[in-house]
């Protein structure tokens, strides 16, 4: 019933496509300062507008994946740049990914457990009774995958003396560095971020998670197929046109399909 109702809504809100007058909107969650995001993504939008032959292609920002998904369903946006975990949790057949970004040339990423070397922790077993920082309950690399890994090693959240969600990966690293927490979970590669590169050698990585596919850019399943292909091709050609250089660490896009996220779906399902 829910899926059927969604389909009706999507059909009602479908844009007129296939002409130069087509105006498409892509939604994304504002992960940092909104204006900066819109400015950095503008070359990509112009590239797609041009490649697809649209009247306009504009990015819209939202404060949460839920809001973004609602707008997608309502047809206010036709594309949505979702989070990996959020997409997996949706388990929504009416939307499909078309591309996923390459972050620093990688189409997937990993989560990791880390601590300060001075704490002399060498494995996840050492986390028992320790204070631990996560990013958010819906963060793949910052919570879901690390938690899964922890459980694989037979350690439950209850075994920790304390854990907190700090919303941002950088906040987790900073809190460990300042010894507010004994260990933290974040995506791999964060130590190479400018803010932490000087202290990178102070950290001891305890264990990394499996590969996690990068977040998908999705459209509704009823999106016109040819336009969907044009859009996918436009994303894929963005690297060569230089349209991605303004977005930090983005090196391009690769094709994405629903099954790329099965592992995450399973993980989410276990968590629920």
């Amino acid at each position, binding site marked *: 019933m829910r899926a059927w109702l969604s389909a009706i809504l999507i059909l009602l809100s479908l844009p007129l496509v296939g002409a130069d007058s087509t105006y498409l909107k892509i939604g994304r969650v*504002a992960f940092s300062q*909104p*204006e900066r995001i*819109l*400015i950095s993504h503008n070359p990509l939008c112009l590239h797609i507008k041009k490649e697809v032959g649209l009247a306009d292609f504009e990015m*819209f920002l*939202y404060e949460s994946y839920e809001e973004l998904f609602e*707008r997608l369903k309502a047809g206010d946006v036709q594309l949505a740049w979702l989070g990996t975990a959020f997409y997996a949790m949706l388990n929504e057949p009416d939307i499909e990914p078309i591309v996923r970004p390459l972050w620093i040339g990688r189409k997937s990423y990993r989560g990791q457990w880390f601590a300060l070397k001075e704490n002399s922790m060498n494995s996840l077993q050492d986390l028992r009774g320790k204070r631990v920082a996560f990013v958010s309950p819906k963060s793949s690399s910052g919570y879901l995958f690390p938690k899964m890994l922890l459980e694989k090693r037979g350690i439950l959240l209850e075994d920790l003396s304390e854990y907190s969600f700090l919303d941002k990966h950088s906040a987790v690293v900073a809190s460990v560095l300042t010894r507010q927490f004994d260990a933290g979970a974040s995506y791999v590669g964060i130590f190479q971020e400018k803010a932490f590169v000087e202290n990178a050698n102070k950290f001891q990585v305890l264990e990394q998670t499996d590969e996690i596919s990068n977040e998908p850019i999705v459209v509704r399943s009823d999106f016109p197929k040819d336009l969907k292909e044009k859009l996918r091709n436009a994303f894929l050609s963005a690297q060569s046109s230089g349209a991605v250089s303004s977005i930090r660490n983005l090196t391009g896009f690769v094709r994405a399909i629903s099954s790329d996220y099965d592992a995450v779906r399973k993980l989410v399902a276990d968590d629920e």
Partner: protein
Amino acid sequence: MTISFTVFLAITFFVTFLFISKKQESEYSQLLIQNAKTLTKSIALASKDKILTNSFDTLQTILDESVDEEVKYAYILDREGNCLAHTDRSRIGTQFRVNFLAEWKEKFSASQDSEDFVMPTRDRGDVVEVVYPIRIDAIRRFYGVVNVSLKRDILEKALSETREMFLWIFLFVLVSGFFVTSILAMLATEPIQDITALARNIAHGNYDVPEKNHQFYEEKVLRQSLRTMAGTIQGQVEQLQESNRKLDRRIYELNILMEASLKMNSKCYSNEVLEHILDQAVSGLNAEWGSLLLADQEEKSLVPRVVRGKYDQPRGTVRIGLGEGIAGKVFKDHQPYISNLGAKDPLFEEKDPDRESMIQGIACAPIVVEGEAIGVINVINKKEGDFDSSDGNLLVSLAALIARSIENSQLYNLAITDGLTGLFIKRYFQDRLDDFISQAQRYKLKFSLIYADIDHFKKVNDTYGHVQGDMVIKCAAKTLLLEARDNIDLVARIGGEEFAVILPETDQEGAAAFAQRVRKRVEYKLAQESGLPTQVTMSFGVATFPKNGKTSKELVLAADQALYKSKEGGRNQVTVAG
């Protein structure tokens, strides 16, 4: 002046008030618009991220927290005209049909950067409306607008407050202006009052125009002119005063001379006349004292005859050789001499140390009769200042008067005195006797008359000749004069060897005593003085008014009868009339 200035101040201030009020209205209006712009922009900036992230829930809160009572209304629209927030919450969600949204979409897509954007402002009478777009210039995207309309009555209120404040300032300036102008007027008139006072002083003879710090250049010029004028007037007044002084002096001199002349017209030359003239000289020259010295040709010296002023008695022992000292030189040269050096004068020769040591100034003029000096007149120590030429002139004039007096006196004396003895002649004696009787009767006085006769004079004359006889007569006369009081008793030769003496204020005894003194002196000295080998005596008859006679005739008769009795009694005796 003060009122004129105050009126001028009021008009100036009123015009300024109008000008400033208009300007203030314009500035306040601009300020209101600026405030509206600032408020609108601040709401836009606060709302921007929320609009960009399509999270409109908090926009109303931002709007509510940003506006205050000055805002009539405010709202936020998305670029489609949908009302996202509004001070009137009932308008939220409604569609605003505003023309500018489409225009702005076009404008922002064409605009290169935000500097080209002019914030649209509308003054709609009761409100000032400002619209600010929410946009990203870098990507030329327009996302919505913030509209704020400020109440214009805020402006009116501010203007009203300003006008009220201005009015108070106006009143303050007016009142203080009045006082300040009054003070300034006082300051400005003060120099005029000063100069008026100076002019009044000059009019009253005070020519001192003191230096003073000048507030104004005009005051300085006025003071300088006044000083010059005062100097000129003072000079002329001094000249006039000097002329007056000279004229006064001249009149004074003339008065003195006239007084002296009047005195001089008296019938006889006497010490009284000399004293009077010397008094005039001393007072006329404002001197301490004066002296009159007459020449004693036999002793070749000048002898003080009269002294007046501080001292009034001559020193009988002082003799000044003719040609000696200042007086001697004046006498010799017939030229007046003035010296203010006193004893330090090279001509000065000390004769009377007690008095002369005090001499600081001396004016001396010769007394010349018929081309021959007979004495000098000295005036000593001017009480104020020094003797000058005018003093000398006055003294010369007085000396001339004295000379004239003496000259006249000498002529008169020649007429009334006996050539041999210098005694008064019988006619003069008789006239004076009548005078004495008249005065004695009027004032109830008494006086005595003595008749004297040289005993056996005919025998002397016959024996030794007339020359020797004349010598006896001269010596008898001299003896009488020696005993007589100067200027009091009158001695006359009333016959060949007969003499008469009138003794004023003298009774019988006094007169008899006088006669006895003469008799004895004659008895013992006359022969020797006259060079006779034999004794010469005189007989005397004494009569006293009114006891022996109330008329001249009766008195003369009584005296003559008494003399006769002395002759009858054996001569060389004194008989008092009974």
